[in-house]
């Protein structure tokens, strides 16, 4: 199954197994070990005492495949040290750590996370929305502090049914979010780079108009130059004082300073955030707000998703080394 590669001079054993370079272990490897990749010879850069550029110069000149987590930026500098690279497999749902134009220029294929994580991320988005509107985390805090009595009423929340939900980015995750929220009676609208002919939800060509017609914005898109700070003050003001923002994309899609100001000044009713501009730092003002739900960037971190990702990564590598189509190639960069 694994075709032997034809290496130049290098001093590793198991010359039959195809080589896969790993600069830093992705979460699946930290949690599951690397047995799922037994059919490959892993070049583990982080285990070497050599500085990275030396390691790559010596050991990775003929490496064709790279497995990378999301937190490791793949820049031009690294690419220059990998002249034989033909494939990057990323375990991250986002692609903002990859210099996409440079990869395209060099003809390097990218295998993404596909839709392995989509259900878990969508579940978290819906969980945040229900939590913010119905004050679940706030109520749990209230009960645990011993504040519940029959005389004072815990503040009422807001109904989900009929809420107009604007989904920003209708990819795999956005569509799973839409499907779930429809069952709650929410009205779904969306904006996306391109209109999707296969869906019937109303399409908006820009996020400002979407926000003006929405009660909730759910950020499901990737971080690119176009989407950086796309959710700015104007968008948040357009969403309005009863508006709720849910972010399960990337922190930098939202202008975080403005978000905090809008929440502090009650220009927004609430927010559910799994991602932040400068993780693990979270703006201090948010830490004492009752109308926000905060989460430490973990929407994909379930054993089910991580196990599925092991299979998915293995599948992509097997496909590549047997000259078959990748399971989840990134197109349309």
């Amino acid at each position, binding site marked *: 199954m694994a075709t032997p590669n034809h290496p130049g001079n290098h001093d590793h054993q198991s010359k039959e197994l195809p080589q896969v370079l790993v600069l830093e272990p992705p979460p699946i490897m930290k949690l599951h070990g690397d047995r799922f990749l037994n059919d490959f010879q892993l070049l583990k850069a982080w285990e070497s005492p050599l500085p990275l550029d030396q390691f790559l110069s010596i050991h990775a000149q003929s490496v064709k495949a790279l497995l990378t987590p999301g937190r490791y930026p793949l820049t031009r500098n690294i690419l220059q040290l990998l002249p034989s690279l033909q494939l990057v497999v990323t375990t991250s749902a986002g692609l903002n750590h990859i210099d996409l134009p440079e990869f395209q220029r060099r003809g390097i294929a990218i295998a993404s996370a596909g839709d392995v994580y989509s259900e878990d991320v969508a*579940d978290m988005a*819906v969980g945040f929305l229900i939590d913010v509107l119905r004050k679940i985390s706030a109520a749990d805090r209230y009960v645990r502090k011993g504040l*519940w009595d029959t005389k004072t*009423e815990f503040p009422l929340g807001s*109904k989900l*049914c009929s809420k107009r939900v604007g989904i920003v980015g209708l990819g795999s995750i956005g569509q799973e979010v839409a499907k779930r929220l429809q069952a*709650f009676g929410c009205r779904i609208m969306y904006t996306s780079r391109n209109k999707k002919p296969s869906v019937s939800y109303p399409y908006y060509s820009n996020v400002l108009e979407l926000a003006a017609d929405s009660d909730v914005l759910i950020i499901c898109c990737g971080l690119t130059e176009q989407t950086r700070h796309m959710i700015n003050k104007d968008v948040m003001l357009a969403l309005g004082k009863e508006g709720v923002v849910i972010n399960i994309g990337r922190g930098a899609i939202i202008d975080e300073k403005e978000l905090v100001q809008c929440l502090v000044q009650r220009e927004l009713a609430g927010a559910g955030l799994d991602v932040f501009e400068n993780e693990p730092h979270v703006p201090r003002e948010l830490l004492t707000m009752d109308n926000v739900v905060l*989460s430490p960037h973990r929407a994909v971190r379930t054993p089910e998703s*991580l196990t599925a990702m092991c299979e998915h990564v293995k599948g992509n590598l097997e496909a590549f080394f047997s000259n078959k189509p990748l399971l989840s190639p990134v197109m349309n960069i």
Partner: protein
Amino acid sequence: MGSIGVLMLIPMNTYLEQELQKRYNLFKLWTAPQKPQFIKEHANSIRAVVGNAGAGADAELIEALPRLEIVSSFSVGVDKIDLAKCREKGIRVTNTPDVLTEDVADLAIGLMLAVLRRLCESDRYVRSGKWKKGDYKLTTKFSGKTVGIIGLGRIGMAVAKRAEAFNCPICYYSRTEKSDTKYKYYPSVVELASNCQILVVACPLTEETRHIVNREVLNALGPKGVLINIGRGPHVDEPELVSALVEGRLGGAGLDVYEHEPEVPEELFGLENVVLLPHVGSGTVETRKVMADLVLGNLEAHFSNKPLLTPLV
């Protein structure tokens, strides 16, 4: 209309209180220093009682109000009302069905997500600064888990519909099997609990359903199972629930109701696999207003000799 006496048992909704005050001679029982005295004093003018999930017209109260004609509950559950006594005395009873179905079902799903994905606990993690020291642990996927529903009435069906959008297989227990549904039926709650991962209580509280979730059911649900109670506290044997959670025989619980509200067993406060809510199932601005209007509408209909909007008795 101003001389009709209406007894409101506990504070439940400011708008409702204000409207009742405008339209009737409103007696607020909770303001009385001596409740039995208060009732005696005003018994001759009280023709209606307004209660809710927390307080209703029991036999004693009914006996003390000889001119009582109607009990209008600001809730869908009427377990605190002595329905038999009302029937016996020809007293009408109304509740607030349908209008709160969605909110309660939404909350059930919210509790499932909050427990399985540890939403409240990881929010605490961030607020306490722990994220700076390390990532939060893994939490269990919700989509695709089997959801077992006790009681496939309006609320049970609404929970099922929502869970289906998460690709959750649905099964249920009911007094009788429903012919018009595709969900899998189990003839006992223990069997249901053995075959699902998330068990939701969504039936009315009656003598038959008291402690319907007992030790045997909790053990069947098991160390990976999660109990969601959006029914009534007494549906669940609470001490058994607490020990099952503390001992790890039950995987987790999302609770909106308790046996002796507002008391919540303190052993639960230290557990990260439970989410505790202060009976907020129907607690949205929108729904409480609609519920209040339904109470007012039922009273108005009764006192103008028109058909009641949502009669139970």
